[in-house]
């Protein structure tokens, strides 16, 4: 493939194909994000606080639009604690008020206490806008790869190395 990069147009075309693959994948992710109105429409369950419903490593699909009804007690929601980047998947157990600034209290099914300890200092309830979506579907176990990659960063390097090797060797 590389030997036929004699003329610049062909090189540009090859580069464009590669770039379009990346950008199409990215745009599909962003498209899903816009449709669900969630900054991260697919999350991985990181802890066992929602067992037996969700296990560590499950992949969750989120929906963040309240078209038919408000987010209500009993729904499983995902939120980020203010200032931290970790998504927490818990169930809504109390609700006060309505609309985009309703106050919600959450608790993990497998936890003893509710989430008041987890919220930021001085925060007793979640605002509806803190929530990045309610769970509408899930794929068991698929997300475990992501967990392994983030907990063992050397695996990322190993994976990239292997992929690079495969690409280089294929040229021969």
């Amino acid at each position: 493939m590389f030997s036929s990069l004699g003329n610049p147009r062909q090189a540009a075309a090859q580069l464009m194909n590669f770039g379009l693959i990346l950008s199409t994948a990215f745009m599909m992710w962003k498209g899903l994000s816009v449709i669900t109105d969630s900054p991260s429409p697919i999350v991985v369950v990181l802890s066992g606080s929602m067992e037996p419903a969700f296990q560590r490593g499950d992949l969750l699909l989120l929906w963040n639009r309240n078209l038919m009804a408000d987010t209500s007690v009993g729904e499983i929601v995902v939120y980020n604690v203010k200032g931290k980047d970790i998504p927490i998947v818990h169930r809504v157990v109390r609700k006060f008020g309505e609309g985009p600034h309703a106050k919600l209290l959450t608790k993990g099914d497998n936890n003893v206490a509710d989430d008041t300890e987890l919220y930021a200092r001085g925060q007793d309830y979640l605002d509806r806008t803190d929530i990045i979506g309610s769970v509408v579907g899930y794929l068991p176990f698929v997300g475990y790869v992501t967990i392994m990659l983030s907990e063992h960063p050397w695996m990322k390097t190993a994976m990239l190395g292997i992929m690079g090797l495969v690409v280089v060797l294929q040229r021969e």
Partner: protein
Amino acid sequence: MATQEKITVYNLADLKNTSDDAIPNYLNSLKFTQSHRLTDVRLSLGYSAFVVAAACFLWDYKLGFESTKYFTAGAVAFYTLLNGFLTFWILYVEKGTVYEGTSPSGQEKIKISTKTKKNVPTYFVTVEVQNVNSKGKTTLKIERPFNEWFDAAGRFVAAPFQTVLASQVPVIGQLDVKRANPASAAPAQHETQPAYTPEMLDMLAKANVSVVGTTAEATETSGADAKKGGKRRKA
């Protein structure tokens, strides 16, 4: 003579791509003026789409999702439009065109498109020639097996490939008279035998005839070529 890469003769995509690459080399060496209109449109569509995606990535990364989500929605829609148009362009406008150009005299426009059928080692070429003055368009279809210009090892041999084009397409034949009249014209003979063995290629290499599909070398063949042409066919 020159180191030449071998391709896998069973890989239809390789056969087609190598042959497709040889056509512009050959025609440009005959001083055809290539028109890059199709490629340029395709490149501009593709790169614009990529730029839209890159911009979307940047503002999302810098400003976060919530504040930019309407722009992101717009970007996704625009990207889908551009990509859709690009796909349409490739499928329906380009339609397998590998060369578009004008003859050196400026009188004829030529457009060559190629295709292959799955698991059939035949090169299907459609040549459209249009005279700039008249309205008529002549369409020629050429079907030849790939082994006419690939040897058993997978090397591309320019001479028979050029002969096929020159003998079948009058516009090209006028410009490349050497190739327009091959010693043997029947294609049926070549179906089962590969055209070149390594010994023949060594012989050709020694006679300073290039077997690489490059522009300059392929056209400056010596007088010995005509005799070699005879020998090739008999062996």
